[in-house]
Every structure is written in structure tokens, then in C-alpha cells.
């Protein structure tokens, strides 16, 4: 077969069929897609605003630290006087509505400095206590043994006294609350937020305080929502609802990922009273990998990592990819694993981490195609230009 015959055959059997396909969007698909894009653009807007705020704060922060240092010395001196060992210590009175977590010094967590509250013994959120997360922070806590929550700052959530035994009631004042609730033992969880009451029997969901009320999104199970005017809706898995207009829409990819991450962060943890703070952007410690006597096949490990990425088990994917990177620093999968880690960091919106991962790549990649991918990822990881 000569070249002309070969081209004719390809044209007849492949090109003609591909020209006939009509990848058009119907109205429902278009609405779903534009909803997802709008949500992605909202996130980009928020990131840009946060970046602008951070940039604007930086020069002032530089001047503030000496002041904080002076204040800290003065406080230490005062404490030294107050807590002299030979004197009777005054009992600290418990206030009625205590804050389980007090916000750390201005800007300390956001800048990645260690937060002393991490060193405190684990606490549970009891009725009439609140959990606070500063802008860019995540705070995790449990309520009883059935509620595991992540609060994304700026945010504050309070545990209210429930009307019935077995019920749990939360009030979200601001921020985004990601909740995993095990309702198998009975009882319901209610989350009050501006303009909405969300009742849950057992599910994985998020409530977010937005400008025009509240948004509720469900990843697993089903919740019942109610506006202040009594209009109700059932929100099934994969959907979100806003209190302002009572509209149901598919859950955004960004929120679905946040819920998957919230769940992944709790995997392997016993549901016990616990509280921890994570500064944003999170500095991921490399997970310790227990090495079996026989080195597992790295290809199999990579396949597992790919499966975890497909299933959105992002924490597991990260762990497997880091394992490959650790074990195979000169092997063929090293570069691919690093590129995947950079992708995951970008999925999290953590550009700094993505750039750190990309910086671990060797100057010359084995496969030029991977070099192009690395360039593309690096371009995506660059901070947004301020407007």
C-alpha cells in the first residue's frame, strides 16, 4: 500500500467519522458545567484576594514583629511574677461560654510559625464551646464520638446545647464547615447557619457561610435543609443548595475535593476527642513508610497511586507517590511521581507546595514530554498577578 492509499484509508475510516461527531452541550449539561466553572472562578477570586491581602500585610508585619517580641518579653516577666512557685496560684475561673480554641497571635499561623495550642492535650468540643479558625487556617475537632469536623477560616462554629439526648446542634457563624457524621447509633445533627437549618442523619457534607446566606453541599448521604421562612429541601449526594434562592445545583469540584480531603485527613485516626490546627498552606511532612522485608514492585505501587488519584483518595495517593520518590530517586518513575505530586498540590490550590515539588525535579528530565508537562505545571503554579 503506497502513501496515498494509506492516507485515503485513514481518511475514510477515521477522519470522516471524527468529522461527523458533534460534541455539543445540551442545556442541562451547559448549566452544570457553567456552575462548576463559576465555582472554580470564585475560588480563584478568593485566592487572588487573599494573595493581595497577604502582600498588603507583609510590610506592616515586618514592623510588628519587634513589637510582638517586646510584648512577649513583658508578658513573660508578668507571668514570672504571677506564678512564683512559693505563692498560692489563683484558680482560673471557668467562664460560661468558653472558647475551645483562642485565635493565635495575629498572623502567626498564617505565616507558618508553630502554634503553641498544638502542644496542648487533646480537647473535645463540649456544649457551649466554640472552635475558631483564622483566615487561611484549618482547625479540626470532634464532637462526641460521632462528629468529625474541619473548619476552614475565617470561621467560627459553636456547639449548642441540644434539645434531646443523642442530638448534636452546631451553629456556624462564618467560614466553611466540613463534617463527617456517623448517625448509625441514632440521633440527628443540626447545623444552624445564616438563613439555613441543616438536619442530618448520617453523611459527609459541608456548610458554608456565603454573602447571600448559606450553602450546603453533600458528598455522601442526604441532608434536609430549611430556610428561616420554613421552605425546605432535601439535598442528596452530589448536590448543593443555597439558602438565598433555594436553588439546587451540582456540587462544585472544588468543594467535592475539599470534602474528600477532609475525609482523607481523618482516615486511620481513632474517633476520639482531638483538636489540631493546621496552618495554611499546610507543610506536608513526608509520611513515614514502613518498609517490608521485600521491596514491593514500584510499578504496582504507581498503579495503586493512580487508582487512588482516580478515586480522589488524595492523601493515600500522596503517600504512595512519596514512597516511590523515596525509594526510586534515580528510577524511571521518580519524575512522573513528582509531577503527580505537583498536580495534587495544585488541585489543593497549594501553589507553593507545587513549586517546591517541581524544584525537586532534576534539571534535565529523561523524557522531553515530561519536561513540557513540568513547564505547564510550573506556569500554573506561579502566583496570580495582582490586579
Amino acid at each position: 500500500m503506497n502513501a496515498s492509499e494509506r492516507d485515503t484509508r485513514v481518511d475514510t475510516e477515521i477522519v470522516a467519522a471524527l468529522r461527523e461527531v458533534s460534541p455539543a452541550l445540551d442545556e442541562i449539561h451547559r448549566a452544570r458545567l457553567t456552575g462548576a466553572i463559576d465555582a472554580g472562578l470564585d475560588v480563584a477570586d478568593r485566592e487572588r484576594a487573599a494573595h493581595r491581602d497577604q502582600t498588603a500585610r507583609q510590610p506592616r508585619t515586618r514592623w510588628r514583629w519587634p513589637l510582638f517580641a517586646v510584648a512577649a518579653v513583658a508578658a513573660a516577666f508578668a507571668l514570672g511574677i504571677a506564678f512564683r512557685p512559693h505563692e498560692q496560684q489563683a484558680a482560673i475561673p471557668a467562664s460560661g461560654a468558653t472558647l475551645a480554641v483562642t485565635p493565635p497571635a495575629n498572623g502567626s499561623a498564617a505565616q507558618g510559625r508553630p502554634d503553641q495550642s498544638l502542644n496542648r492535650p487533646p480537647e473535645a468540643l463540649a456544649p457551649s464551646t466554640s472552635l475558631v479558625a483564622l483566615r487561611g487556617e484549618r482547625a479540626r475537632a470532634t464532637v462526641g464520638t460521632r462528629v468529625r469536623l474541619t473548619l476552614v477560616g475565617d470561621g467560627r462554629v459553636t456547639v449548642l446545647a441540644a434539645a434531646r439526648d443523642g442530638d448534636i446542634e452546631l451553629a456556624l457563624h462564618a467560614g466553611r464547615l466540613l463534617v463527617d457524621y456517623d448517625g448509625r447509633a441514632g440521633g440527628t445533627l443540626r447545623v444552624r447557619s445564616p438563613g439555613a437549618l441543616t438536619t442530618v442523619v448520617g453523611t459527609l457534607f459541608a456548610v458554608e457561610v456565603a454573602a447571600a446566606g448559606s450553602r450546603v453541599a453533600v458528598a455522601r448521604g442526604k441532608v434536609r435543609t430549611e430556610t428561616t421562612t420554613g421552605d425546605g429541601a432535601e439535598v442528596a449526594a452530589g448536590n448543593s443548595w443555597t439558602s438565598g434562592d433555594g436553588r439546587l445545583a451540582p456540587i462544585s469540584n472544588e468543594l467535592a475535593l475539599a470534602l474528600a480531603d477532609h475525609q482523607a485527613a481523618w482516615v486511620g485516626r481513632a474517633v476520639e476527642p482531638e483538636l489540631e490546627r493546621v496552618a495554611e498552606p499546610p507543610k506536608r511532612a513526608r509520611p513515614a513508610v514502613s518498609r517490608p522485608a521485600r521491596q514491593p514492585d514500584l510499578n504496582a505501587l504507581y498503579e495503586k497511586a493512580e487508582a487512588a488519584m482516580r478515586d480522589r483518595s488524595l492523601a493515600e495517593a500522596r503517600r504512595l507517590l512519596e514512597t516511590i520518590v523515596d525509594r526510586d530517586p534515580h528510577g524511571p518513575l521518580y519524575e512522573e511521581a513528582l509531577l503527580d505530586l505537583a498536580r495534587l498540590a495544585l488541585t489543593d490550590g497549594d501553589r507553593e507546595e507545587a513549586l517546591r515539588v517541581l524544584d525537586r525535579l532534576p534539571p534535565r528530565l529523561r523524557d522531553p514530554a515530561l519536561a513540557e508537562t513540568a513547564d505547564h505545571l510550573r506556569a500554573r503554579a506561579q502566583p496570580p498577578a495582582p490586579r
Partner: protein
Amino acid sequence: MPIRRPSPTADAAEDARLVAAAERGDRSAFDRLYRRHLDSVYARLTRVIGPVSDRDDLVQQIFVDVYRALPRFRGEASFSTFLHRIVLNVAYEHLARRRRGRTEPLDDRLLEALMAPAASPEQRAREREELRRIFALMDHLSPKRRAAFVLVAVECMSLDEAASLLDANPAAVKQRVLEARRELSVALDRRSQREHR
């Protein structure tokens, strides 16, 4: 169905106006801008990567990437060119990732959505299987060859136009299309041999 080319020249001025407004921080201008191009992006992405299930995620990623990259858009090329370069970058990255992993079979519903609605059920089933086979053959191509082949052979784009989108020179694009044709021809031969056995 004839292939619609993105943004005819008459629309370029409106694009430029919306880009300028979006760069000044007018989010609604960007919303209008992306809605104008949504269909062309969706169609091109589908032709390049096939009707895969994570296509919607990629479309979302494309427009968020464009939004973030807008301050760096200098206006040296049209907005449409700038946008479709990002489409091809994202498609390329997706294809590269897919080649390293397992390829999931295409969903019947996603294939059906590509076909003319008036066809009879038998005809649709036949066309669906044919499309499945064609996309499987396309999966043999490297991402670069596949993108070049779709732009030049399927969408009838000139080598210069395709080269500007693929960030390559026209000779390289021509070479990729030739190699793609050769590989597809070999794959068709193999398929015929298997079917005759």
C-alpha cells in the same frame, strides 16, 4: 456536522473588549467571555481527547487557568488563540497522564452524545461501536501526534494555524501529522487482520 471554527474575526473585537474589562477586574465580563467560547472549547477538547468522563473537570480547569493567566495575556495573538493553546496544553497533559495509567473504557452514554439524534437504534449501536474503535485507535498515538492530527486532518486547520496553537513550527506539525497517519494505518491493518482471523 460541519466543524465550527472558534471565534470568527468579527467576534475578535468583542473578545478584546471583554478581555480588557476582565483585566480591569470585571468578573462578569470574564463570565460572558468564557460562555462565548464554552462550546468551541468543549468540542475541541472532545475531538482531541475523546468523550472521556473527566472532560467536564478539564473544561473547568481550562477556564480557571485562563482566568488566572489573563493578566499575562499581552494581546499579541487573539484571545481565541491564547485560549485554545491552553486547551491543547490541558489536553496534552491529560493524554500524557492517561498513557501512563490504565485506559478506562468509554461510557456508552458519552459516546451516544456525540451521535446524530435521528439515527435508528441499530444504526446508533453500530456507530457507537465504530466510534469506540476509532477512539481506541487514536489512543495509540502520542499526545503530540494526536493533537496535530486532529487539528490538521480532522478540523482542516492550516499547518500555520495549527503550529501557532501547538507552539511548534509548521514543518514539525506536518511531520507529526504524517507520523500519525502512518501509525493509524498500521493500527487499521492490525485490526483488519484480527477481524479476519
